[in-house]
């Protein structure tokens, strides 16, 4: 496992990191950026167009759309970070435990992980919301429980691979305890892989939060949330399509940013789980190198 790729800061895809950093900054400083209270209604100024007072106009309750979009960034960011941290904590703990302990315990945990991965995460989240009821915290809980399994599978794979390494044996011979070996020697490898994967996965999570809110099962009004703003605006789609387009654009931009980041990570050859899309990207990179070599050797014009 090559973690130097992550430590080597000059190799980081700084340019594709910028939109993501922008999103995070807007989320953090949202209260300072918002010119109005995003939930404040003003019936004397409903459905106004763009103006100096209201940069992106107002919605049907006279709420400032710009403030709501900026506020929505904060809601998405906070919810996404909570779910990601919780899912990482659960996934890394269970996956590492399974990989380290091995034997029957591992078999049982792996079966649970595999069944959890057999259904799409969002379907699991929906089912859990049905059981827990709707609301912000049940959405957070449901998404966490739907998201951990992937990280658990990854963590287990890394732990199993690292345990084969001679330095683990060396540490054991030197009298290191299980906890020391795990925390000092294995955990950094696990985190290096899982955190990189999670940072690219964050876009999918932002999308899931918006989708659940769009379906009326996530963030409830009047809290500004993009998916919920969009479904709110659907009633005015013929007169004021802006109310639908703007939150949708904001959401799409954020997801595109994270997906670009994920693509950049894949091209950087940062260690990532070898499944589906990554495998294809790696194959693509390999194919491109090979094709270049072929082109030089055979003189054909490919790639």
């Amino acid at each position: 496992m090559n973690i130097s790729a992550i430590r080597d800061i000059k190799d980081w895809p700084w340019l594709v990191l910028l939109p993501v950093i922008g999103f995070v900054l807007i989320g953090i400083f949202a209260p300072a950026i918002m010119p109005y209270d995003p939930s404040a209604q003003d019936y004397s100024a409903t459905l106004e167009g763009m103006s100096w007072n209201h940069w992106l106009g107002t919605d049907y309750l006279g709420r400032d759309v710009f403030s709501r979009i900026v506020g929505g960034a904060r809601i998405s960011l906070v919810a996404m970070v909570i779910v990601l941290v919780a899912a990482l904590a659960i996934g890394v703990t269970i996956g590492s435990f399974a990989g380290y302990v091995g034997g029957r315990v591992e078999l049982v945990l792996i079966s649970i992980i595999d069944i959890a991965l057999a259904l799409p995460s969002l379907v699991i989240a929906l089912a859990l919301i049905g059981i827990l009821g709707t609301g912000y915290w049940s959405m957070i809980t449901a998404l966490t429980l739907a998201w951990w399994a992937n990280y658990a599978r990854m963590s287990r794979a890394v732990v199993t691979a690292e345990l084969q390494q001679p330095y683990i044996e060396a540490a054991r011979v030197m009298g290191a305890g299980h906890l020391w070996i795990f925390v000092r020697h294995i955990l950094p490898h696990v985190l290096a892989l899982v955190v990189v994967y999670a940072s690219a996965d964050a876009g999918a999570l932002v999308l899931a939060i918006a989708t659940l809110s769009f379906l009326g099962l996530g963030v409830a009004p009047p809290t500004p949330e993009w998916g919920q703003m969009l479904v709110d605006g659907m009633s005015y789609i013929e007169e004021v399509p802006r109310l639908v387009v703007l939150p949708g654009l904001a959401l799409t931009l954020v997801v595109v940013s994270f997906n670009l980041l994920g693509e950049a990570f894949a091209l950087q050859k940062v260690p990532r789980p070898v499944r589906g899309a990554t495998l294809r990207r790696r194959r693509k990179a390999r194919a491109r190198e090979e094709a270049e070599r072929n082109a030089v050797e055979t003189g054909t014009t490919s790639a």
Partner: protein
Amino acid sequence: MKRTILRRMLLACLLILAASALTFALVAAAPGNVAALIAERAAGPGADAHMIAKIGNELGLYDPLPIRYGRWLSGALAGDFGISLRTGKPISSEFAARIPMTAALLAGGGILAFIFSIALGIAGAVSNGGVMDRFLHAFSLIGASTPNFFVAALLVIVFSVMLGWVPTFGTSGFTSWLLPWVTIALFPASVLSRVVRVNLQEAMSRPFATTGFAKGFTRTQVLLREALPNIAIPFLTTFGAQFTLMIIGSIVVETVFALRGVGAFFIEAIRFRDFIGMQSVLLLFVVFFVMVNFIVDMICIVADPRMRRARGA
């Protein structure tokens, strides 16, 4: 080969069994008693313990879990999913009306995704770094990043509100299906076109492609004659995965376009905490996922002799 297929079939059945048991356990563990919910709906908030116990006894809710699970699964296999807590009608009759709707949505979306991904992927490979290739890259990135409810909204704004070509909601004739189909197909089409493009590129660097060049074929000819058949396996596998993911798309699309399908039923069941309805839909989904994966596996085994040997052992 027969043995491989039989083994896969057994595995599929086991998977359905395991996943349905998990679904059942999940709903059985739900806080709040189903009997209490029914009693509350029948008699208002004043339902007393006696009534709850009576309803619970009638439904056999006090039997041990494995027995309840067996009863539920055997009933479902016979087409009896129980009574919906929300509508008070048998869920099977809901399904009879809704499954064709969702099936039509998935089939149309699947066909669109299939055609467009192959066409775009080939166009990208033929252009090979040119304008079409760049367009494909941008399309696949944006298509895979745009939430499907936003796609639906944009399509409605452009084609219904501005141009007035198709009706906004509901089902009235062929044209009303176009927007839902395009919406549901966009995400899988973007992912799959990338898969086609990348795998074509990879196939072009393999020895058989070089042989094709040596025979004097042009790049496009080699692409279509030699490379294209060779991407069947990765394409079909990803197509299967994307097709199952289209269930999520169908949930959103049915809600946006007010189609009365299974996905919309699922969302209503979740909103009204109709546990029995939720359970039935989840079982349906599980069966669908396992079936799609099984069929894809079968096609792969039939299409690629190497798979037969690799898995037949």
